[in-house]
C-alpha cells in the first residue's frame, strides 16, 4: 500500500465535496455561501457562549465541574457512537463518490483507507462541534491548567472510541463478505449501530448516576472509559499520551489489515410492494420511497427503538416517528430519473404533491402501529398529536432541504449542511415565537403560514431547476 496514493485520493474526495457542495443548489451563489458560513460560525459561537455562561453560572467555583467532567467522559463513547452512526449512515449512500476513483491506478485497499481517512476527518468535525463548546468554556472558566484534564477526559477517549468503532465496522464488513451478504450492508450496518446505541444509552445513564453517587459518598469510581483521565491524574499527561499513542499504534495497523480487499457494490433498493404500483405516477413515487435503503434504515431504527421502549417501559410520546420524516431530504434527488426520462415530466405542482404525498403515506403506514404502541403503553392520544403535526411539518421542510441542497452522487456533506442550517433556523423561529407568548391558536396559525411558505418555496425551487435544465435561466 502506497501512503502517497492514499493521501492523493483523500484530497480528491475533499476536492469533490468542496466543489460540489459550494457549486450546487442554494449554495451556488456567493452571498448564500457567505450567509451559510456565517450562520454556522454564529451557531457554534452561540453554542460556546451559552455553554460558557451556563457552566460559569451553575458550576463555576462550586467544585462540581470535576464530577461533571467525569460524567462527560463517561458519555464520550455514546456521543462518538452517535456521530459515527450519523456519518456511517450518510456515507452508505456515497458509493458513487467511491466510483470516482475506479479509473485511477489505486488498489482497493488504498481506496478503502483514503475513504476511511476522509470519513474520520468528517467525524472529527462533528465531534469538534459537539465537544468543542464544552471544552472551550471549561478551559476558559478553570484556566489553562484544565487543558490536560479536558484532553484526557474528552479527546483521548473520543479518538480511541472512533478507532475501535472503525475496527469493529471493518470486522463486520469482513464477516458480511464471508457469509456472502456484503451487498446488504446498507441495512445490516445501521441496524447493528442502532442496537449498539440501544445498549450504550442505558449503560451511559447507569455510569453517570454511579459517578454522581460515588462523588456524593466520596468513593472513587473506575471504568475503562475513564482510563486516560485516571492515568493523567495519577501519573501525568505524558503517560496518558503515551498510552493513547500505544493503543492507536496497535489499532491503526489492525484497521489497515481488516479493511476489505475487494469492493462489493451496496444494494440501494429492496423489492417491496407490488409491481402494479408502477403503472401510476403516484405509485412510482411510493415505490421509490418505500424501496430505498434509507427508508429501511429509518424503519429499522424505529423498530429497534420501539422494542427497546417497550421492554424498558419508556412512556414517551412517539418522537421516534420523526426519523421516518427525514426521508424528504432524499425524496427529490431519488425520484429525479422519473422526471428526466420522459419528454413530458408532468406539472411541477402535481410532482410536488406526489413527492410529499408519498411521504404522507409512509408516515401513516409507520405511524399507526407506533402511535398504537405508545397509547398501549399509557401515553394519551392527545400527546401524540403535536408529534404528528411536527412530523407533517418536517416532511415539508426536509423536502425543501432536498430541493435547495440537492445531494448529488450520494454526497453526504450537502445533506449535513442542509439539515444543520434548517435545524438552526427552525430552532431560532421556534424559540423566537415562544418569547411572544401567543395563544395556541395564533401559534398554530403562524406555523401553518410558515409551512405554506415552505411549500411555496419548494415548488418555486423545483420550477427553477426545471427551467435551468431547459436552459431558460442561468444556474
Amino acid at each position: 500500500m502506497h501512503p502517497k496514493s492514499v493521501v492523493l485520493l483523500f484530497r480528491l474526495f475533499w476536492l469533490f465535496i468542496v466543489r460540489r457542495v459550494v457549486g450546487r443548489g442554494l449554495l451556488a451563489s456567493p452571498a448564500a455561501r457567505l450567509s451559510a458560513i456565517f450562520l454556522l460560525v454564529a451557531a457554534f459561537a452561540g453554542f460556546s457562549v451559552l455553554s460558557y455562561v451556563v457552566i460559569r453560572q451553575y458550576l463555576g467555583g462550586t467544585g462540581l465541574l470535576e464530577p461533571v467532567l467525569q460524567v462527560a467522559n463517561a458519555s464520550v463513547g455514546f456521543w462518538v457512537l452517535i456521530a459515527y452512526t450519523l456519518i456511517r449512515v450518510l456515507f452508505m449512500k456515497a458509493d458513487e463518490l467511491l466510483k470516482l476513483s475506479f479509473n485511477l491506478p489505486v488498489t482497493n485497499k488504498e481506496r478503502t483507507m483514503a475513504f476511511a481517512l476522509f470519513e474520520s476527518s468528517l467525524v472529527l468535525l462533528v465531534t469538534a462541534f459537539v465537544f468543542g463548546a464544552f471544552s472551550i468554556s471549561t478551559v476558559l472558566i478553570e484556566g489553562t491548567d484544565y487543558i490536560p484534564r479536558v484532553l484526557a477526559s474528552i479527546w483521548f477517549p473520543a479518538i480511541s472510541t472512533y478507532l475501535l468503532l472503525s475496527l469493529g465496522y471493518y470486522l463486520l464488513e469482513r464477516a458480511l463478505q464471508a457469509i456472502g451478504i456484503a451487498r446488504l450492508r446498507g441495512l445490516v450496518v445501521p441496524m447493528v449501530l442502532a442496537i449498539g446505541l440501544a445498549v450504550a444509552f442505558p449503560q451511559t445513564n447507569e455510569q453517570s448516576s454511579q459517578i454522581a453517587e460515588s462523588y456524593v459518598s466520596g468513593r472513587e469510581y473506575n471504568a475503562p472509559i475513564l482510563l486516560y483521565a485516571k492515568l493523567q491524574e495519577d501519573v501525568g499527561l505524558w503517560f496518558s499520551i503515551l498510552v493513547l499513542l500505544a493503543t492507536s499504534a496497535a489499532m491503526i495497523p489492525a484497521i489497515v489489515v481488516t479493511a476489505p480487499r475487494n469492493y462489493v457494490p451496496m444494494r440501494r433498493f429492496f423489492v417491496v410492494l407490488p409491481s402494479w404500483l408502477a403503472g401510476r405516477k403516484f405509485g412510482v413515487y411510493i415505490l421509490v420511497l418505500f424501496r430505498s435503503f434509507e427508508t429501511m434504515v429509518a424503519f429499522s431504527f424505529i423498530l429497534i427503538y420501539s422494542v427497546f421502549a417497550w421492554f424498558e417501559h419508556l412512556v414517551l410520546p412517539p418522537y421516534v416517528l420523526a426519523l421516518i420524516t427525514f426521508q424528504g431530504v432524499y425524496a427529490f434527488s431519488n425520484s429525479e430519473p422519473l422526471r428526466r426520462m420522459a419528454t413530458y415530466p408532468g406539472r411541477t405542482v402535481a410532482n410536488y404533491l406526489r413527492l410529499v404525498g408519498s411521504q404522507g403515506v409512509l408516515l401513516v403506514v409507520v405511524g399507526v402501529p407506533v402511535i398504537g404502541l405508545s397509547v398501549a403503553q399509557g401515553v394519551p392520544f392527545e400527546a401524540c398529536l403535536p408529534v404528528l403535526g411536527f412530523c407533517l411539518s418536517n416532511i415539508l421542510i426536509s423536502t425543501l432541504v432536498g430541493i435547495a441542497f440537492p445531494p448529488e452522487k450520494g454526497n453526504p456533506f450537502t445533506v449535513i449542511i442542509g439539515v444543520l442550517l434548517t435545524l438552526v433556523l427552525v430552532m431560532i423561529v421556534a424559540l423566537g415565537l415562544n418569547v411572544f407568548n401567543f395563544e395556541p391558536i395564533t401559534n398554530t396559525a403562524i406555523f401553518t403560514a410558515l409551512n405554506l411558505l415552505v411549500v411555496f418555496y419548494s415548488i418555486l425551487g423545483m420550477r427553477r431547476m426545471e427551467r435551468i435544465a431547459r436552459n431558460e435561466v442561468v444556474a
Partner: protein
Amino acid sequence: MKWLLRFITGLTVSFVVTMIVVVTSFITTMFSASEMGVRKFGLFGALFFEPHEQADGATALEIGVSNGAPIALVFSISLVFYVAVASVLERLKLHKKRLLQADEG
C-alpha cells in the same frame, strides 16, 4: 409576479432576521438577570425576563413582550434593507448584461 415574489422573500428574510435578533436579545437578557423577582428588559425595552422563586424552591421564568414597537422597527428596517439590496443587485445585473451586449456589438 417578479416583484410579488421579491416582496414575499423580503417578508420571509425580515421575519427570520427579526427572530434572530429577538432570540439573541432574549438570551443576553436571560443571562444578565440574576436576582429573583427583578424584571429585566432587553431589545430597547421590547422584551422582559423575570425569574421567580416558587413555593417548592424551584425557579419559574416569566418571559414576554412588553413593547412591540422595537420589534416592528427591526422588522421594517430589515425589509427596507432587503428591498434596497435586491434592487441594487438587480440593476447591477442589468448593467452587466448591457455591457456584455455592447462588447459583442
